């Protein structure tokens, strides 16, 4: 098996405001391979964005990466643990944008309203490449062209508020790719857009990935997007990856009750025609009040009293690539072993 380009092991990121502790990411692990797309999926608030920001070490205070490893394989073959780097170090700054590009959830507010889009792209280019202002501008226009913005020569001088949401997200993509990183993290890149634009942006990401052999982490809560884009999937719930595996396995043989519930809640995949759309019972607990044991047990239909609420379920391997964190599968693997 090829070495992953990015490997996250037991990542722990907590927010510690005065009121208590928010365990936003609580022991998440996953691998990302070059040229592949990893989909991270989960309900709102389960820690997807915080995971992504932890990788770049840009979690805002009072949050902090408190444990685990984030192993990044650099272009020269070295492996660095981003979790151990100083978040203000030169190396970390080179990695941001240089090795890992990041597209944000909100294209509306992710660009400065007081600077032209060109200004921001040129800045991103020159941070990582030794180019003159003029060359960088040329490059910025090329990038805008690449992400499919019409009339890039003019657009380079416009302000973000003069662009539509779709164009803005394209600018964000151009910005993320400005220094030709090997990894692209796209945090719900289409949530704020209308359906047609969504499809176009996803198509663009797919095209760029193929052209540049990018490794993509695609964060979403839309199982449909996952089905269309991802090679492998990590299902996240309350800061933990509860199930991960190849996209086929997740869709056709989901093991974790949460994954099963998620799949039932999308219209087309498993539900019978004209049946009521299923929703997941209950709601996400308050961030300060995570249940002990398996975080999902209060909403789980296979809840086993005295087991699930007692201790955290271990990671159980279904097969080489398919893992699940659930007591339901513990016995099976033990006997198999």
């Amino acid at each position, binding site marked *: 098996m090829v070495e992953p380009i990015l490997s996250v092991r037991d990542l722990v990121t907590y927010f510690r405001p*005065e009121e*208590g502790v928010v365990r936003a990411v609580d022991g998440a692990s996953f691998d990302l391979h070059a040229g592949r797309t990893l989909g991270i999926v989960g309900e709102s608030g389960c820690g997807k964005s915080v995971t992504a920001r932890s990788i770049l070490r840009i979690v805002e205070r009072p949050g902090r990466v408190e444990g685990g490893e984030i192993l990044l394989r650099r272009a020269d073959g070295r492996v660095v643990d981003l979790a151990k780097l100083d978040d203000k170090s030169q190396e970390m700054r080179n990695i941001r944008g240089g090795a890992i590009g990041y597209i944000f959830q909100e294209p509306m507010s992710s660009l400065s309203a007081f600077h032209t889009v060109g200004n921001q792209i040129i800045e991103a280019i020159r941070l990582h490449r030794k180019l003159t202002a003029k060359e960088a501008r040329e490059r910025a226009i090329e990038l805008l062209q690449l992400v499919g913005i019409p009339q890039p020569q003019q657009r380079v001088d416009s302000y973000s508020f003069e662009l539509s949401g779709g164009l803005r997200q394209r600018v964000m993509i151009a910005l993320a790719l400005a220094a030709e990183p090997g990894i692209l993290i796209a945090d719900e890149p289409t949530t704020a857009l209308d359906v047609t634009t969504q499809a176009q942006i996803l198509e663009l990401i797919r095209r760029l990935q193929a052209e540049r052999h990018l490794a993509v982490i695609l964060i979403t809560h839309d199982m449909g997007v996952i089905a269309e884009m991802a090679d492998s999937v990590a299902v996240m719930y309350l800061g933990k990856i509860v199930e991960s595996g190849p996209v086929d396995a997740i869709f056709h043989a989901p093991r974790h009750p949460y994954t099963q519930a998620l799949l039932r809640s999308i219209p087309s995949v498993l539900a019978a025609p004209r049946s009521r759309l299923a929703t997941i019972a209950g709601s996400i607990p*308050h961030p300060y009040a995570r249940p*002990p044991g398996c975080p999902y047990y209060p909403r789980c239909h296979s809840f086993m*009293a005295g087991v699930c609420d*007692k201790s955290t379920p271990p990671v159980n391997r279904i097969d080489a690539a398919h893992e699940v964190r659930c007591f339901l599968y513990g016995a099976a693997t033990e006997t198999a072993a």
Partner: protein
Amino acid sequence: MSGAVADQAVPLVTAAEEKIAIASQLQLTWWRLRRHRLAVASGVLVILFYLVAVFADFLAITSPHATNSARSYIPPQTIHWFDEDGSFKPHVYALKGRRDMRTFKLVYAPDPSDKRYLAWFVEGYGYELFGLIATKRHLLGIDRGVPEDALFLLGTDQLGRDVWSRLMLATRTSLTIGLVGVALSLFLGVLLGGISGLYGGAIDTVIQRIIEVLRSIPTIPLWMGLAAALPNDWSVIQVYMAITVIISLIGWTELARVVRGRFLALREEDFVTAAELAGASRLRIIFRHMVPSFMSHIIAAISLALPAMIISETTLSFLGLGLRPPAISWGVLLQDAQDIQALALAPWLLVVAVPVIVVILAFNFLGDGLRDAADPYG
């Protein structure tokens, strides 16, 4: 339920969470405020000040209007806490006044042989407690003779009036003028801000423009102009009311802004929409749902508006355009300390600055804490 046998530490946390989840907006504000220690301490201080206002006459020693040219500009006295035998008997020395033959000024020398012991709950000038109960009791006095002759904790002014006693009564005037002014501003602010935020459209635009116009006029010259026009023969009460009105005519804009902002924000909120969908009447929505949810904002805005009112009154009176003698307020007292000659002669007159600064500071801390607590993310 098996959840009951779970680990001891965990349910404790969850109980706290549940408490947060069901608390009302005002309760939440109060909890957050309690953590803000400076604000709480300031709140206590403000309450103490208002107690002084309520019991001003009781705390005063001598009649604040009693003049005596023989007691002009007596400096503050030192209190001797212990008697010669070491027992705790606070006393002051009686003063002997004598005219300096070169400067023709009165100079006072304490006479150690003539001790005057402090006494509690003594009889003094008559007044009406709470405006109802006629009494002559005062907190502090001396055991023999009248305090007018011997007890000057903070000295006297040019006319020989006791600064301590005047300060007590000034506190009453200045603090209540703030209250009345804020009440008036609040009425105008809630009314106009509420209309503005509730109806929106053209009415909102008009009110917003009025506020903008009012805010872009320098207030002091305006107040001065209006205050100077008050007839000279008006009584203290009339002037008091007129000054309050003048100050609040301009002070309401900030409150209106806050109220309007809350109305606009709340109109969008789910629970208001839900109540509307459920068919609740508009008035019911306002009073059952909206007003409670922004009470804390209003309280915060009030505690920030009060010190502004107090400063306004003090400034106007200081200029001689606000309250005039015989009324006593902080501004009126500061007027005596207006020029450098007076200050050089009697620097203790500046003592009035202390309560002014302390109370305004306390209001600001309190208001800031309240605002933070009402809207930690705003």
